[in-house]
C-alpha cells in the first residue's frame, strides 16, 4: 500500500528565502537553477567488490558495488547474464530512514536505475554466458545511500555506472565432466563488457521553477520531479515522473531539454573517473576475452 507521506517540515523563513531566490534565478547555495553541486567520483573504492564507486554530490554520498556470481539464466534468455539492481537507504543516511526492508522509495530508485541500464543494454549481458543455457554471470549491483542531502537518483545512477565500468570478471574453472563452475576470487579474466554509458538527470519542480540537483531542503519544497535517463549518444533511455504534483506539457518539454543539456557533464564525470581503468577517453571498451 502506498501512503501519502508526511513531508519534512522546512522552517518558513528558509522556505521563503529559497522561493524568493528562485524567483531571481538563484539558489540558496549560490548555484544557478540548472547547476549541479561539486561531484566527486571515486572508482574501485571497495577492494573486495568486483566493481564499486563512491559518489559525493554536494553532501549526498552514495556507494555502489558489484558482485559477480555464477548462476542460472532466465528461461526466456538462456544465453544471457542476469543483472539485478537493489538499493538500500541505510538508517545512517537520514533521520527519516528506518531500518528494515527497502521501502517504496528505495524500490522505485532501484527500478528506475535498473530500467535505465537494461533498456539501452548498458551491460552486454549477451557476453556473460559461461555455459550457454546453463551457467551465466549474475551481476548484482547494490546501491547504498550513505548520506541524504537530495537528488538520490542522479547520485545513485552515477555511482552505479561508475561501479559497472570498474567491474572485473573473475576467472572461472569449468569441470568438463560435471559442468561445475568454480570462481577463482581475486583472479580476473577482464573487464565487464559495457556497451555504452548512461546517466540520469532529474529535474525538480519547485513552485513554478525547474531546477537540477536540489539539496534536501530544496527537495522538500518540490512537488514533482522528472528523471530522464540519457545515453552518451543523446537518446532518452528511460523516464520517471514522481511526486504529488503535476507537470504541464511545457514543463515536461523543458525538463527533457534540461536533461539532454546536462547529461554530457555527468557522462564526462564518469568517463574521467574511469580513465585509469578503461583507457584514455574512457570509452566503454569490452573485456578482452570472455569465459
Amino acid at each position, binding site marked *: *500500500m*502506498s*501512503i*501519502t507521506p*508526511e513531508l519534512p517540515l522546512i522552517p518558513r523563513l528558509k522556505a521563503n528565502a529559497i522561493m524568493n531566490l528562485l524567483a531571481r534565478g538563484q539558489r540558496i547555495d549560490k548555484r544557478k537553477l540548472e547547476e549541479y553541486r561539486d561531484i566527486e567520483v571515486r572508482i574501485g573504492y571497495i577492494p573486495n567488490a568486483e566493481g564499486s564507486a563512491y559518489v559525493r554530490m554536494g553532501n549526498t554520498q552514495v556507494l555502489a558495488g558489484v558482485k559477480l556470481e555464477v548462476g542460472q539464466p*532466465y528461461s*526466456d*534468455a538462456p544465453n*544471457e547474464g542476469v543483472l539485478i539492481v537493489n538499493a538500500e537507504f541505510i538508517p545512517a543516511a537520514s533521520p527519516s530512514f528506518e531500518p528494515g526492508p527497502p521501502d*517504496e*522509495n528505495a*524500490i*522505485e530508485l*532501484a*527500478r528506475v536505475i535498473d*530500467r535505465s541500464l537494461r*533498456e*539501452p543494454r548498458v551491460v552486454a*549481458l*549477451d557476453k556473460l554466458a559461461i555455459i550457454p543455457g546453463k551457467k551465466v554471470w549474475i551481476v548484482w549491483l547494490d546501491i547504498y545511500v550513505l548520506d541524504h542531502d537530495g537528488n538520490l537518483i542522479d547520485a545513485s545512477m552515477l555511482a552505479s555506472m561508475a561501479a559497472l565500468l570498474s567491474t572485473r570478471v573473475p576467472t572461472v574453472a569449468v569441470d568438463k565432466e560435471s559442468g561445475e563452475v568454480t570462481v577463482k576470487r581475486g583472479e580476473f579474466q577482464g573487464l565487464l563488457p559495457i556497451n555504452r554509458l548512461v546517466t540520469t538527470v532529474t529535474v525538480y519542480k519547485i513552485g513554478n521553477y525547474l531546477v537540477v540537483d536540489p539539496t534536501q531542503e530544496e527537495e522538500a519544497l518540490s512537488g514533482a520531479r*522528472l528523471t530522464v535517463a540519457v*545515453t552518451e549518444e*543523446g*537518446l*532518452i*533511455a*528511460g*523516464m*520517471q*515522473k*514522481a*511526486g*504529488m*504534483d*503535476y*507537470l*504541464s*506539457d511545457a514543463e*515536461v*518539454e523543458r525538463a*527533457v531539454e534540461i536533461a*539532454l543539456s546536462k547529461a554530457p557533464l555527468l557522462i564526462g564525470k564518469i568517463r574521467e573517473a574511469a580513465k585509469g581503468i578503461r583507457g584514455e577517453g574512457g570509452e566503454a571498451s569490452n573485456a578482452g576475452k570472455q569465459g
Partner: protein
Amino acid sequence: MGAVGEKPRLIDESGRRIDGRRPDELRPIEMEVGVLKNADGSALVKFGDTWVLAAVYGPREAVPKHMTLPERAVIRCRYRMLSFSTHERKSPAPSRREVELSKVIREALEPAVLTELYPRTTIDIFIEVLNAHGGTRTAGVTAASLALADAGIPMRDLVAGVAVGKVDGVIVLDINEIEDMYGEADMPVAAMPGLGRITLLQLNGVLSPNEFRTGLKMAMEGIRRIYEMQKKVLRQKYAVIEEE
C-alpha cells in the same frame, strides 16, 4: 528482458498492427461505474483484454489514527494483479513492481483529489488487475479516477491514462502485451486533460527526443478520447432526468 522466442512482425506492409489496429487507434474500451455494492465508489475498465477493477473507500476515519495528516486527507493506494491475471501464475505476495506501481498511481491521482477538504481522514484506493494484456497501470489510473468520482470525492479533474510505445520503429497508441514484450519502448502517461496537467509519465525503452515528443502528443490525444468516455459513463449514471 532479453529476446523471448521468436519476435513476431509487429507492423504489416499496410501499416496495421498485430491486432489489426492503426498506429493511433485505441483498443475497444468499456467502462462501468458502481459495480461494487460495499465500496463508496467503484469502476470496471476494459482496454481490450486488459481488465481492471478499482474500488474507493472514504474519506473515512483512519484505523491507526497517527497515520493521518492534520491539513489534508491521506491517500492510500494499492495496485495488485490477481494471481490468475497473467500467463504464468503471479504470486500473491506483493512484487517490487506492484510496490512501485502503487506509488506511481497514487502520485498520478494526488494532484486531482481535493484532499484539503477532508483533513485527518484517509481515502483508500484499491486497484485489482483481473486480466493483464498490457497497459494495466494506465487502465488502473483511469478506473481509479472513475471510482473516486463515483464515491463523490471532489476532484479538480478526472485523470485518464494510456500507454504509447514504439514497435518496429513506429510510434503507436495504447500498446498491448505483445507490443510491450517485443517492442522497443513503452511509455505510460496519465493526465488531467481538462487542465493540461501530466500526472504520470514513465518511459521503459529507448527513444530519440523527437520520437518522445511524437509519443507524448499521441498519448495526450488518446487521453482526451478516454476522458470523453469517462465523462459519458459518469453522466449516464448520474444525470438527473427532470420530470415536469
